[in-house]
C-alpha cells in the first residue's frame, strides 16, 4: 500500500542540492548575526521580532495544522484520509523542526539552548511552548510509529487523539504568546489563540496539499481528483474560518475606543501593513482562494489539481502576510505610555517604528523552509510514507459516489 520513493532522479537530486544550498545560506546568515550581533539585521529595540520570526511562526503554525489530515483519518475515522496520514505526520515533524531551527538560531545567545531547555519559569507561556514544541516532536514520532508498524496499528487511534489534543494546546500556546501581552494594543486579546488555531488548520492543510501534489507528481504516482477535490473543499472551509476570526478580531477592536489607534493603523494608514492586510492577506490569501475552491468543478477534472494547488499557494502567501502584519505591524505601533497625549523622545516613543527585512533575516527564514523540505524529501525516500496510489479507483467505492459532484 505504501512505498518509498526511489529518489534517484535528476529532479530529486537537483531539489536536494538547491535545498542544501538554501540551508547553508541560512546557517551562514545565523553565524553572521551571532558573531556581529543583531545590529546587522533590520531588527531593533522597537521591532525585536522580525522576518525570522514571521517564518518561524508560520512554520510552527502550519506544522500543527499539517497533522490534521492524519487526525481526520485516525481520530475521526474518515476512510478517505487514512492513506494520507503518514505523510501528514512527516510533514508536521518537518515543518516544526524547520520553524524551531529558525527560532533558535535567531536567539541572542543560541549557545544557551541547553539553559533554555533545562531552566524554566512556568509562569511564562514561552516556557510552556518549549515543552509543547519538543513534546510535539515526540508525540508525532510515536504516532507515526503506531501508524506504520502493523502490530501497533490498534493503538493508532489513541496516539492520534493525544496528537490532536497536543497540537490544539500547542497552537493555543503559540497564539497566547501574543494574546498574553497586555502592553501591546495589537495583541492584548483572547481571540489570538482561536485565530491561531484557525490559521493552523488553513496553512497546514495548504502546505500538505502542495507537498502531496508535488510528491505524487514527482514520483509518478496517481493522485485522483476526488482526493484533491475533497481536500480543496476542506481547505476552503478552513480559509473561510480564518477570515471569520480576522473579521471578529478587528470588529471587536474597533468597538473599543482605546484600540481605535492601532486599528486605524492596520486597516487604514499603516502603509505597508495596510497594503499587506487588505491586498495580500484578505484578497490574495482569502477571497481569491475561496472563489477558486468553492467553484463547481468543470466536467474536465484534470484542472482540479492546478486549481487547488494555486489556491493553496495563495493561501500560504496570504498566511505569510497575515503573520507579518501581526508580528511586525503589531510591534511597529508604538506603546501607549500616556494615553491621549502626544509623546516624543530619543527612544522612539510615540512614533511608528520603521522596519525593513534584511538579507540575513530572509536567508535564515528561508532556510527553515529548506530544512523542512529536506526532511520531507529524504523521509519519503527512506521510509514508506507515500501511498502507492491515490487514484479514484483505489478509493472506497462508497466515497467515489458521494465524493464526486
Amino acid at each position, binding site marked *: 500500500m505504501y512505498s518509498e520513493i526511489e529518489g534517484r532522479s535528476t529532479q530529486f537530486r537537483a531539489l536536494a542540492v538547491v535545498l542544501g544550498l538554501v540551508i547553508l545560506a541560512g546557517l551562514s546568515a545565523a553565524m553572521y548575526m551571532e558573531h556581529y550581533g543583531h545590529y546587522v539585521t533590520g531588527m531593533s529595540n522597537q521591532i*525585536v521580532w522580525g522576518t525570522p520570526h514571521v517564518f518561524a511562526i508560520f512554520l510552527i503554525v502550519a506544522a500543527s495544522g499539517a497533522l490534521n489530515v492524519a487526525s481526520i483519518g485516525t481520530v475521526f475515522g474518515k476512510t478517505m484520509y487514512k492513506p494520507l496520514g503518514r505523510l501528514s505526520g512527516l510533514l508536521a515533524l518537518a515543518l516544526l523542526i524547520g520553524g524551531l531551527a529558525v527560532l533558535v538560531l535567531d536567539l541572542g545567545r543560541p549557545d544557551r539552548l541547553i539553559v533554555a531547555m533545562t531552566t524554566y519559569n512556568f509562569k511564562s507561556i514561552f516556557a510552556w511552548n*518549549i515543552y509543547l514544541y519538543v513534546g510535539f516532536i515526540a508525540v508525532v514520532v510515536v504516532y507515526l510509529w503506531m501508524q506504520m508498524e502493523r502490530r501497533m496499528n490498534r493503538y493508532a487511534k489513541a496516539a492520534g487523539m493525544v496528537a490532536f489534543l497536543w497540537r490544539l494546546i500547542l497552537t493555543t500556546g503559540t497564539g497566547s504568546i501574543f494574546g498574553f501581552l497586555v*502592553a501591546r494594543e495589537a495583541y492584548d486579546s483572547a481571540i489570538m489563540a482561536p485565530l491561531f488555531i484557525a490559521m493552523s488548520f488553513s496553512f497546514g492543510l495548504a502546505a500538505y496539499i502542495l507537498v502531496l501534489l508535488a510528491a505524487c507528481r514527482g514520483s509518478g504516482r496517481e493522485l485522483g481528483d476526488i482526493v484533491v477535490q475533497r481536500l480543496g473543499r476542506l481547505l476552503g472551509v478552513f480559509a473561510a474560518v480564518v477570515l471569520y476570526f480576522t473579521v471578529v478580531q478587528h470588529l471587536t477592536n474597533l468597538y473599543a475606543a482605546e484600540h481605535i489607534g492601532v486599528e486605524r493603523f492596520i486597516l487604514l494608514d499603516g502603509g505597508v501593513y495596510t497594503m499587506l492586510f487588505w491586498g495580500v492577506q484578505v484578497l490574495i490569501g482569502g477571497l481569491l482562494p475561496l472563489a477558486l475552491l468553492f467553484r463547481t468543478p468543470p466536467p474536465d477534472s484534470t484542472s482540479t489539481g492546478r486549481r487547488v494547488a494555486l489556491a493553496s499557494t495563495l493561501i500560504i502567501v496570504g498566511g505569510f502576510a497575515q503573520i507579518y502584519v501581526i508580528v511586525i505591524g503589531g510591534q511597529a505601533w508604538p506603546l501607549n505610555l500616556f494615553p491621549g*497625549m502626544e509623546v516624543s523622545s530619543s*527612544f522612539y516613543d510615540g512614533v511608528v517604528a520603521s522596519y525593513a527585512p534584511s538579507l540575513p533575516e530572509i536567508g535564515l527564514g528561508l532556510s527553515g523552509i529548506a530544512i523542512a523540505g529536506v526532511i520531507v524529501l529524504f523521509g519519503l525516500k527512506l521510509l514508506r510514507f507515500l501511498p502507492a496510489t491515490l487514484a479514484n479507483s483505489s478509493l472506497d467505492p462508497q466515497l467515489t459516489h458521494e465524493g464526486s459532484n
Partner: protein
Amino acid sequence: MTAKNFDPARRSFLGSAAAATGIALAPGIFLYGVGATTQVAARGLDEAASSAVRWGMLIDLNRCDSGCNECVTACNKENGLQGHGRPETDAQWIRKVEVRDPGNGHSQSLPVMCQHCEDPPCVDVCPTGASFKRPDGIVLVDKHTCIGCRYCISACPYKARSFVHEALQDQKPHAPRGKGTVESCTMCVHRIDDDRQPACVEACGDTGGGAMLFGDLNDPDSEISKRVATYATQQIRADLGLKPGVRYRGL
C-alpha cells in the same frame, strides 16, 4: 464499545495535566518559602537583600526641566553605555520623554526608566526566569541565564528594556553587559547595595533640578515615604495594575 471503557489517551492526558500542574506550582511554593525577611537599615555587603525593604523613586516634575539631561548622561557614564551612532539599536536605560496634551498645548518633560514594578510583566514572560525581581523590589536581568529571546521587551509596557545588538568591550566592572542579552535600568543596584544613591538621582541633585528622590517605600520614616504620603503622586499606566516603584509628582 465494551462495558469496561478505558481510554488510554484520556488517562495519559489527565495524568500529564496533573503532573504539569504540579511542576508549575512547585517552583512558586519553593520560592515563597525561601523569601527571607531580615533586618533592614544599612545592610552589610555580605547580607542578602531583604523583602522588608522596597526601593522606589519619586520624581518631582515641577523641577524637571525639558532641556536638562543630567540623569541620562549620568546613567550612560555610570553603566558604560557607549553610543554606536545607531539610535535604533543603541541601548537606552533612561530617556527623557516630552509629553504634550493636544487638547490644551500643555507640555512637560520626564525621565522614564524601568519602573521596577511589583508585578512585572517582563518577569512573568521570561522563559528561563532570567528576568527576575529581587526581594527588595529591584527588577533585574540575570545575564547568565538570558538567552536573548526578547520576549520581555515585547511585554514591557514602558519600553524600558533594550537588547544589546553588538559585541561590547571594557564594560564597567560593576555593570556587566553583553551582546545578545537584554538589559534595563538596574536602579544602580551596585550602588544601592553599597548604601549610595543611583547615579541619575545623584546627578539630578548635584547638577540637575533636584527632582529625583530615592528611598525605601516600606520605611514610613524615609523621606520618600513621607512625601508620597503628603503629596499627590502618580504612576505611569497605573491602570495596568503593575504597582511600579517609580512615582511622579505633577504628571
